[in-house]
């Protein structure tokens, strides 16, 4: 697990999404740990723009050669942008999960929209716990 990248400036969900907070917007993707566990990703199902979300609502799905996994909303809010590039090139998620492999942008709603997120150190511990 030591090789898994967990950038310090991001927040994380326990379902292996990362979130980059930019004012009232949050960019969401899946972590290096998640893409490594999934293996080669072959399809990404993205949410509809304008969809209102509660924390942990299903956003979309990620299909890899191993399994299909749900993508959960790490924050509450509304979808305002999705990364259409992933529809044709899902492999970007494997190649650059924290950069070009982002999934969607959520405009956050409510004061406790970020309540469930954890920081990089706590997420690293969460990954290590599962490796035991």
């Amino acid at each position, binding site marked *: *697990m030591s090789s898994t990248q967990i950038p310090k400036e991001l927040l994380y969900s326990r379902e292996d999404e990362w979130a980059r907070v930019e004012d009232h917007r949050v960019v969401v993707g899946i972590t290096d740990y998640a893409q490594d*566990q999934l*293996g*080669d990703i*072959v*399809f990404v199902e993205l949410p509809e723009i304008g969809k209102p979300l509660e924390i942990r609502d*299903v956003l979309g799905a990620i*299909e890899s*050669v*191993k*399994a*299909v*996994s749900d993508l959960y909303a790490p924050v509450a809010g509304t979808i305002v942008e999705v990364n259409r590039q992933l529809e044709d090139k*899902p*492999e970007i998620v494997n190649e650059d999960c924290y950069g070009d492999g982002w999934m969607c942008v959520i405009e956050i709603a409510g004061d406790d929209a970020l309540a469930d997120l954890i920081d990089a150190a706590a997420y690293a511990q969460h990954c290590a716990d*599962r*490796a035991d």
Partner: protein
Amino acid sequence: MSDADRRSRSGNAANGFGYEEALLFELSREDRVGYSLPELDVPAVSPTDVLPEGSVREDLAELPELSEVDVIRHFTRLSTWNAAVDLGLYPLGSCTMKYNPKLNERVAHLAGFSAAHPRQPAALLQGFLHLCYELARHLAEVSGMDRVTLQPAAGAQGELAGIMMIRAYHEHRRDHRTKVMIPDTAHGTNPATATLNGYSVVEVPSNDAGILEPAAVDAAMTEDVAGIMVTNPNTLGLFEENMAAIAEIIHAKGGLVYGDGANLNAVLGIARPGDLGIDVMHFNLHKTFSTPHGGGGPGSGPVGIKNLLAKHLPVPVVQKSSGPDGDAYVLDSDFPLSIGRLHGNFGNAGMFVRAYAYLRSLGPDGLRRCADMAVLNANYVLARLKDSGAYKIPFDRTVMHECIVSDGNFSEQGVSTLDIAKRLIDYGYHPPTTYFPLIVPGALMIEPTESESLEGLDRFIEALLAIADEVHEDPELVRTAPHHTRRSRLDETRAARKPVLRWQPNAAE
């Protein structure tokens, strides 16, 4: 290490002659035929004279042109490349790849069954309908349910039928519910079934021991929840010990309990889902009741229900009517609240005959012995693997019909579950289920079934232990397996991203 060394080192898989086999389309030669027809002894009729305009194609379909021997050799050769239950242990977890007794085939081939037409009038199908009625009765007896429909064509359609009946039940009571509760150990078909029925899914976590906790179910249960879908034993091979308490919690708030019968083999003759509070469940005849599974299918997924769902059964329902001339079997479609028809005819009828033959040839004691031996075999595999220390055991407790080990000991060597699975092919085994259930990282899910002898299990375990040694001595050998097959690692990623679904002339380059 040379290829020859690799071959001599280990493994016993080598089937058939070492030929390649082209596609039928590539084997085709113009005007080659595999039939001869007698001369026409009636006046010739041109299709364009008798068929409506537009229904006769102008160009010829580019079907392959082959002789009989071409076709027979083609398929026989391919069949020798197959893994099959008739060739050896097929430990595909959660699939119950048990041996299919040949007696089933003999009975299914009796002309009264095999030559019958599904649209014959019921009066001319009495033998078959009698069998349907009896099979449904036996399945109900084995499971503790009140009624059984045989229509669903496989397990996933059985689930669909079951949740449709749950939905019909609530809607008929004007009780509009929106969610279905599903544990995190569930088969992927469960959430798919709920979604297809318009429900959203509430996931319930299993506890550290791998089973559902009544408190977790209670916390998630609301009057919005139509029901819970539970597989018992679950996909970790563990018996859901709190099933009755969980059913009580669900029932108390007006929900119903769906039982996924995928793993019924482990409890045949021992525990009946109906007695544990299950209201509706499906059976997989192609798992538990020894009808062919996989490419040799088709499947068959009968559904058992408690009487509270009876008015929603799919139609037609096979009923027995007793009169002065004896019993007769009729097709009853008078169910105004039925969820409708699920199959054009009766379902996968040939499977009913095979499953009935299996049930009757084993009898109650034989069925129980199936479960006993399936559970004993899985625990034997787990115990030997655990004692060896070679594999990581995520849930160290007595299991039911299947057990799980993981690749957790091999991360330093960079060897994954996929590599172990591929290497098993060199040893002559179809790999177990991999990377499932999802809550165990790198899972290898092994279900030996009751069909294996002690020697057969030992050979399989020795293969797994030999592979664990190879991981430490020569990880490259495992990472690049299989070495004994005609093809090694196919590019699954490219196949999924850019699938080529159909052969086309000149597409090869």
